[in-house]
């Protein structure tokens, strides 16, 4: 077996093992920090060969590792990646390194536990994206809640306990319904292998219930309207690092779940119920867009913006059925899926960066209220440049990553129905409105008060973190081809799965 043979396992278990060692370091704060940095950087370095050795042009799983795990329930330790999960793993490793660097000095209590929680979380999140066995997936998916619960609860804001328990219970209830669906599929197929779930014929009633059970889990995670209410609370109360992980990666797991579970396992139910998802997505885009306009708290505004953008992701995933119905052609399905995935990655970079920007200001002023700021550009010109860039990316400016995904999804919805495209495109207007208005109030104008006047510009560490994200946002924005190449085979394969009915003749 080659080096690539254990790459995924290393990516999962190295951060987790590192996290436990950091935990054991306890009061030796400097050692804990440096070890966290080394471990997370190592994980990032290990994900480079994942990209380099990845074979484009095939939808088959790669870097497969498979060995028996629990024989009594036929569950295996079965991991692998395809073009959908690989970029998300890269996003995870990149984000974690940046979080470790960004949190270097602004954690005061229980420092080792803080960094350990993020490392363990990283390993578990990579496990979610890599798992190809239902039980293994579920174990990572649920275990992830524990470090996040602790992160929000220990290092969060004043209402952190309320926020973290709400986050936990919302996610938990959805996940358990998914578990029931997974067990049903297991009893039917005799294995927990996801590929077998995808192959197995199911009648429409079964598919509908399974689809709804999965929807309960993934809609909460995305989050879709009307089960989104945990997100603004969790985001506002979480420490900066926690907000970044939530926005950049955890929300993507809902989208990933739709792609890996709902669509291929229950394609007929997905087609029957696509109106539901499309409707909820458009509500998220339009209604939540307006809600975002009304926010006075910066983090809350970005949280609502996240919900709206994730509405775009789910729209792109489910618009394909309408395209086939409207035009009879199947070419648009892949476009919607591609757009959705690019939008997920882009949102991961942009929203993570926006939360980091808020974090930078919060560290200095200790307020997230928009009204506490004004004219930041006068005292923090470098920071202002980054903030404006990310704001423009958030509102979908061509040349940034935000544009690519939104454009593809709007294009796909145009093929289905002009009205879908019309409502979807309001995100360009509303997104620009709430983001740029935020920038106008916070960054531009006269220096609002003494605190803003006393602001110091970015230090080297912050500059590095935001610089890396800015480079990534621009790179994906002007040259998305490599990313699309990686994804293409997998999304085409998925699109084909969607077109074949699983109802047994």
């Amino acid at each position, binding site marked *: 077996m080659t080096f690539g043979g254990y790459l995924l396992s290393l990516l999962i278990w190295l951060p987790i093992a590192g996290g436990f060692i950091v935990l054991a370091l306890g009061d030796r704060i400097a050692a804990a920090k440096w070890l966290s940095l080394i471990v997370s950087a190592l994980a990032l370095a290990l994900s480079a060969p994942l990209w380099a050795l990845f074979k484009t042009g095939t939808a088959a799983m790669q870097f497969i590792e498979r060995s028996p795990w629990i*024989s009594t329930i036929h569950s295996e330790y079965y991991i692998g990646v395809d073009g959908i999960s690989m970029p998300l793993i890269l996003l995870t490793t990149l984000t974690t390194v940046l979080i470790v660097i960004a949190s270097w000095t602004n954690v005061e209590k229980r420092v080792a536990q803080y960094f350990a929680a993020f490392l363990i979380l990283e390993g578990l999140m990579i496990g979610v994206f890599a798992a190809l066995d239902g*039980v293994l997936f579920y174990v990572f998916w649920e275990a992830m809640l524990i470090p996040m619960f602790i992160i929000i609860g220990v290092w969060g804001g004043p209402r952190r306990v309320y926020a973290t328990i709400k986050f936990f219970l919302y996610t938990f209830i959805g996940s358990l*319904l998914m578990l*029931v669906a997974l*067990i049903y599929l297991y*009893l039917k197929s005799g294995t927990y292998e996801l590929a077998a779930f995808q192959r197995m014929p199911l009648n429409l009633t079964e598919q509908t219930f399974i689809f709804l059970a999965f929807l309960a889990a993934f809609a909460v995670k995305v989050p879709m309207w009307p089960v989104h209410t945990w997100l603004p609370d969790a985001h506002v109360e979480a420490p900066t690092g926690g907000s970044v992980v939530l926005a950049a990666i955890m929300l993507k797991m809902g989208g990933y779940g739709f792609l890996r579970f709902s669509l291929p396992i229950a394609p007929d139910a997905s087609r029957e119920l696509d109106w539901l998802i499309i409707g909820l997505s458009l509500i998220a885009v339009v209604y939540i867009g307006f809600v975002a306009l009304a926010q006075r708290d910066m983090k809350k505004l970005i949280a609502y913006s996240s919900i709206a953008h994730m509405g775009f992701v789910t729209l792109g995933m489910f618009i394909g059925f309408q395209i086939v119905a409207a035009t009879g052609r199947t070419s648009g399905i892949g476009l919607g899926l591609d757009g959705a995935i690019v939008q997920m990655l882009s949102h991961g970079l942009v929203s993570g960066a926006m939360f980091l920007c808020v974090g930078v200001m919060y560290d200095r002023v200790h307020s997230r209220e928009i009204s506490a700021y004004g004219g930041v550009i006068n005292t923090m010109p470098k920071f202002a440049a980054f903030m404006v860039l990310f704001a423009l990316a958030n509102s979908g400016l061509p040349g940034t990553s935000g544009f690519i995904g939104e454009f593809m999804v709007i294009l796909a919805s145009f093929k289905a129905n002009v009205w879908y495209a019309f409502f979807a495109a309001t995100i360009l207007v509303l997104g620009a409105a709430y983001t740029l208005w935020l920038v106008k109030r916070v960054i531009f104008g006269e220096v609002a008060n003494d605190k803003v006047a006393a602001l110091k510009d970015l230090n080297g560490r912050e500059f590095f973190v935001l610089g890396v994200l800015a480079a990534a946002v621009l790179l994906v924005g002007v040259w998305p081809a490599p990313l699309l190449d990686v994804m293409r085979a997998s999304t085409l394969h998925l699109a084909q799965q969607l077109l074949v009915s699983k109802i047994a003749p």
Partner: protein
Amino acid sequence: MNPLAQFSVSQFNAGLNYATPEIYLGLAACAILMLDLLLNDAQRRWTGVLAVISLVITAMLVAVQPVTVKFVGLGGLFEIDRMAQVLKVVTLLTVAVVFVYSTDYLQRRAILKGEYYVLGLFAALGAMVLISAGSLITLYLGLELMSLCLYAMVAFDRESGIAAESAIKYFVLGSMASGTLLYGMSIIYGVTGNLELGAIAAAVQNGLGDNVGLVFGIAFLIVGVGFKFGAVPFHMWIPDVYEGSPTCVTVFIGTASKLAAFALAMRLLPEALAGSQPDWSQMLIVLAVLSMAIGNIVAIAQSNLKRMLAYSTISHVGYVLLGILSGTAQGYQASMFYMISYVIVAAGAFGMILLLARQGFEADKITDFRGLNARSPWFAGMMAILMFSLAGLPPFIGFWAKLGVVQAVIGNYTWLAVVAVLFSVVGAFFYLRIVKLMYFDEPTETTIIGGSVLMRTVLSANALLVFGLGVIPGTLLQLCQRALQ
């Protein structure tokens, strides 16, 4: 037929052979009782040491028995199969761990008496007899031997008024339940004409399944089993007894006696009355749903940790019943796994209370765990593992338990599976509250955590076992699968 006509010496000897561990434990308990008279208070710890040693030896004697198929001996009174073997080993080791946890606690409150250990040993013997019972008589004998010891243990702290109250409550209600159970047994005997479980099963299979008298008897059996389990609506004694007993007795009732209750249910329902499974399944559905509902919801309102764990037990019993009521071998295996894993976790959780307790301070308020992470990150971590496991989160053993029983009911009773998972969300809330107190709140006191090195080691091992078996549950799952094929 005259039983003596079938009597054969070799058969009797084989029976005695298989009963060696019980005989050994009985003799050891008597010997320790005698020996304890010779010890003064300073040497009293040795009673505990000897008790633990004899439990471990008994467990080893059971473990080495070559059990492949079911063996019925001693004139049908005694039977041993793989399930009995596994349950006995787990029970004995649990009691040994409980004794380790208890010694410090007893010493600190100056009630370290030899009787605690001797009663505990006899209760363990009762549990073993019950687990290995081949007829209704031995079933009842084992149950009463265990229960009477437990009644006395609850009242063991003579100075405590609340303990005396709990003991009376436990005794009166327990006797009523035993009486009901005995009444049910007598009806079963009247209908089938047999006391041996195997013969009853055969009679029920051969056309007695729908007999009204039989179903009437089953209803009484369910009441008795429900009481010993603590399933709603026969749960009233659980919170009061858990709260009122000295914690070292609560942990005994919460762990070892639950395993015995499980054996009681398994012997009576799937073994002896397999033929009327639809009848008792329906009754158990009511018990299971009510237990999950009442247990999980009422636990939220508790401020006393022992009381909260009492309601938590009630809810977990509901989940155990799910597996039994499914009426399949997979379901029974899942229930057995659930029971064993629950006992491991509960032993750890009560062990934490015992660890934090000090002279004149019980540490049984939920708020006593406030800020534990600042006082001892290690034991806060251990408690967090136990709480997440009770909530049924992976990668802890409680998740696999829940997975198994939910798996058992999907198909025939899918709605029950949905009910079960929804109530476990309710349950997650109060387990999370403990984690919240330990991690998110600041401590109100700064005392150093006590406990002997032995106790700390065993407690840590107990919690780490919950984690280890959560990551690699295969062995225990296989053990339960082989035990109940």
